[in-house]
């Protein structure tokens, strides 16, 4: 099976803190990691490769720094990686990103594309389905498990709020994976040692056909109008109160989360 996994290097958002004095994000010292849902996808791809043979290729779009992620992916046993990186792609929203990715993917051969369900920085879960649409591939997302493959059909389990559905999807197709569906393997020493010098392909604008009007900031249908960090409650001094007053104070703080009008 020729499997492509879409991966993204992201900041470890659980480490990001807000500076309580300035209400700005402290991004310094936050490590970059492989997006967990994507890593689960890589693990599934490697498992499929052990079972059915074939190749696992990773495609990522990002700054040159993403090379460090490619090294780790090679250490896990990924066969080849493409890094799509160009200033012209900067500022892309999910639609533009998906346009770039799908335009590049059209130049590759594949039976299955695996994407992580959601990236922990953007949190949109949009790229997988958008790429599937642009490549006109059937999609099954939010997977609980990949069960097996036979005669051009992949069997998977999709989970939703109340059910697990067993689904057959005809390849080529795109599926999206969840971090909780497996435990990713550690690198092994054989691959890790070779990974440092194993070549990958840097893909620039101009290396593949893509509609220039649909990329980057200008090509993005959505725009950010403003951003703000969550305003943190300044630490209040300790106060002695009676039970009734305490309840009122607590209620006032809970109010925005209660979904009542």
């Amino acid at each position, binding site marked *: 099976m020729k499997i492509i996994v879409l991966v993204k290097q992201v900041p470890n958002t659980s480490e990001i803190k807000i500076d309580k004095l300035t209400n700005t994000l402290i991004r310094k010292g936050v490590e970059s990691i492989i997006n967990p849902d994507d890593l689960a996808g890589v693990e599934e791809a490697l498992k499929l490769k052990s079972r059915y043979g074939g190749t696992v290729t990773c495609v990522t779009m990002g700054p040159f720094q993403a090379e460090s992620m490619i090294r780790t992916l090679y250490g896990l046993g990924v066969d080849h990686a493409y890094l799509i990186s160009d200033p012209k792609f900067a500022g892309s929203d999910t639609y533009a990103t998906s346009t770039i990715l799908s335009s590049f993917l059209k130049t590759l051969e594949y039976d299955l594309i695996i994407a992580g369900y959601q990236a922990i920085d953007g949190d949109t879960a949009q790229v997988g389905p958008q790429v599937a649409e642009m490549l006109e591939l059937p999609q099954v997302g939010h997977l609980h498990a990949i069960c097996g493959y036979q005669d051009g059909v992949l069997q998977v389990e999709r989970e939703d709020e109340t059910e697990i559905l067993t689904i057959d999807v005809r390849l080529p197709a795109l599926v999206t994976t969840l971090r909780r569906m497996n435990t990713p393997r*550690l*690198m092994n*020493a054989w691959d890790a*040692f070779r990974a440092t010098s194993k070549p990958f392909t840097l893909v620039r604008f101009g290396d593949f056909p893509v509609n220039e009007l649909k990329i980057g900031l200008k090509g993005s249908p959505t725009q950010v109008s403003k951003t703000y960090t969550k305003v943190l409650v300044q630490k209040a001094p300790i106060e002695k109160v009676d039970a009734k007053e305490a309840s009122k104070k607590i209620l006032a703080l809970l109010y925005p989360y209660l979904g009542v009008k």
Partner: protein
Amino acid sequence: MKNALLTELFQKFALQYVKPLAREIDELERFPQETVKLMGTQGLLGLTIDQNYGGVGASTADYINAVRIFSRYCATTGVILSAHTSLCVDPIMKYGTEEQKAKYLPRLASGESLGAFGLTEPNAGTDAASQQTKAVLDGDDYVISGSKIFITNAIYADIYIIFALTEPSLGTKGISAFIIEKGIPGFSFGAKEKKMGIRGSSTSELIFDHVRVPKSALLGPLNGGFGVAMGTLDGGRIGIAAQALGIAEGAFERVVEYVKKRVQFGKPISAFQNTQFKLAEMRTKIRAGELLLEAAANQKDNGENYNESAAIAKLYNSRIAVEVVDDAMQLLGGYGYIRDYEIERMYRDAKITEIYEGTSEVQKMVIAGKVLR
């Protein structure tokens, strides 16, 4: 030079698999078979083996980095890896025939077989040359009888490098090395030793009762075993220097964390000069030990003569390990004595590094020998 990805692998492996078992295997005196199996599947047992024998083909610097990192969390796991690699893999790579390499190295690389080394006898410790185990030629075989004590990885290892007298009249020059596999008739084990530290490490006597091995089991030249032993121990020294450094680093990390949190007299004890000076001393020792270790490993990787460097690294690192762990325990006070805090295990583990694979006295003999040459 150290490979950054391998370092990342060692660190992740240590946190995920080595650290969680450290206390248990010490308290239960249990050999961590599951960890060894995982080390095998992740390629950690074949770090120094050439790629064409199924190994990783990494450097000595990388391999001892693994020993060092594991030892920060568990000295037992560190020595299991060190004994396997320095004392079994290394001599086969260095002295083995093509047939022997093809036969044993792939098994050692994949983790199918664990390695061990048997030189020490009841009457031959530092005086290693006073071997009494004999290997008598009988036709095309050697028949080996005798015993070895304090053997690391005993019982769990499959492949043993064993030394025996093939020519008693020649003394030191009559010792030969053999590769012997577990399960061969006549080869059995004595009771497991109850040790002060590295309790998860399997240490037992090896008993050879008329064990018959073919001539092809000879490792290195006939009667050249002493050279094989000394050459092997030179490398083993670097492994133990790494283990000792790891133990010191593990203790240091814990004590730094502790002194920042422990409040006495209204301040964290890290605010007191005594603590700060002690930490500075510990840090200096560890940094010096790190540089000595790297120097020895790099010389070995560059094909230079490293036996003085290795002796210095082991002598120094084992001493500072004992000192750093002692100071760490003192700074932890009463808590340091409580098993939950793990410093006491490191305290018990540290001392052996001044004793095995050549006592500190042996290291001094090597260093003085070079000085006075």
